[in-house]
């Protein structure tokens, strides 16, 4: 499986945020996108996920086969918001996303155990702390299988232990042949990653 981007240009509100960005990621490779605020890191992730159109350039996924015909269909997107309903319990939230995403990988309970929250599955999501919410959101990546993870500041709100644990999860995902594109300021604890530094559009 190969995710490649050539000469991508990102625009928001008619203004060019970045241009000429390109990368190629094979199975088991990760890309860390760094750069100052406003350089277009989040925009790049949203463009890759097809949530924003790219103004120029080419974006493609090879080797996805019938299961993943397009880039979007192969992506998990962990955005700045957690995409959980505060009125529903943690298990209900995860259960919903699992059946909506399809391709179940591990059960909701196992995913919660992986992020160390197996005891709070019955609580409404609104009762959780910021870090716990983020961990539930990370558990969402595990309940359904997607080869490409797009992570936008994945570790915001996490403590040191959870950060290390999340690095472990990402390593496992890469070992299984996954692809990760992460936008972050903090080191993710991954060895041998490609780095893309964005300086913003001049």
């Amino acid at each position, binding site marked *: 499986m190969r995710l490649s981007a050539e000469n991508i240009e990102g625009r*928001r509100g008619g203004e060019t945020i970045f241009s000429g960005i390109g990368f190629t990621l094979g199975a088991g490779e990760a890309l860390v996108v760094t750069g100052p605020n406003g350089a277009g890191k989040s925009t790049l992730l949203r463009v890759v996920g097809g*949530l924003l159109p790219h103004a120029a350039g080419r974006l493609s996924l090879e080797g996805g086969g019938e299961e993943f015909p397009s880039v*979007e269909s192969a992506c998990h*997107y962990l955005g700045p918001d957690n*995409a959980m*309903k505060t*009125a529903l319990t943690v298990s*209900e939230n995860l259960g919903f*996303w699992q059946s909506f995403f399809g391709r179940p990988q591990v059960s909701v309970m196992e995913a919660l155990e992986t992020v160390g929250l197996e005891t709070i599955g019955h609580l409404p999501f609104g009762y959780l702390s910021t870090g716990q919410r983020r961990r539930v959101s990370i558990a969402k990546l595990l309940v359904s299988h997607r080869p490409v993870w797009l992570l936008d500041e994945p570790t915001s709100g996490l403590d040191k232990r959870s950060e290390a644990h999340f690095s472990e999860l990402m390593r496992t995902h890469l070992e299984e042949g996954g692809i990760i594109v992460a936008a972050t300021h903090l080191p993710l604890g991954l060895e041998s990653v490609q780095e893309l530094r964005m300086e913003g559009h001049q």
Partner: protein
Amino acid sequence: MLALYIRDVRLGIRAGGGALVGVLFFLAVIATIPFGVGPDLNLLARIGPAILWIGALLASLLGLDRLFQAEREDGSLDLIVLNHDRHMLAATVFVKCLAHWTASVLPLVVAAPLFGLFMNMEPIGIGAAALTLLVGTPAITFIGAAGAAVAVALPRGGLLVSVLVLPLVIPVLIFGVSASYGAVNSPNPFLQPFLILCALSLFLAVIGPVAAALALRHGTD
């Protein structure tokens, strides 16, 4: 898709009681009319179906603006759009509309016969009004979804959605009320306006979700 339906119905019933607010608003509209027009029982019976329809129409517009806005605020909308290969966006919108209708509009239809008594309507008139509401209100939800999708990015889009949607639901109101009248006033037909009402619902069940999906696809900035 069933999971989405169940989640939305649950949210509608659980969070803030959207269903109950709609019914209360409906009750408020119906209860104030007799004070406004005076205690003329014949007049109330005559305008009853129209008042029921207008009350239900306004009450069903109440929660519509939150249909996609809530999803957008917590980031769920991104994931829904991201998975459009697996679940066609128009189909997702259709299911969300059905869930919204079940949780917020169906209680209005159920309450309508009771409110019909307030308006001194005959039993057959009440039955006709409830039946026309049952088949006509889905049309309001479907076209409302398109309005909600257009206004999804606006922080105070609530009133805008109502203003956008109202002109489009006028035909539904006209045929709904004329079918209700047809059931009690003998020279007027019941079946013809009722069938047109059904047709409107079916027609908008296709157009509404497709239009809403188009608006959502281009509104994820």
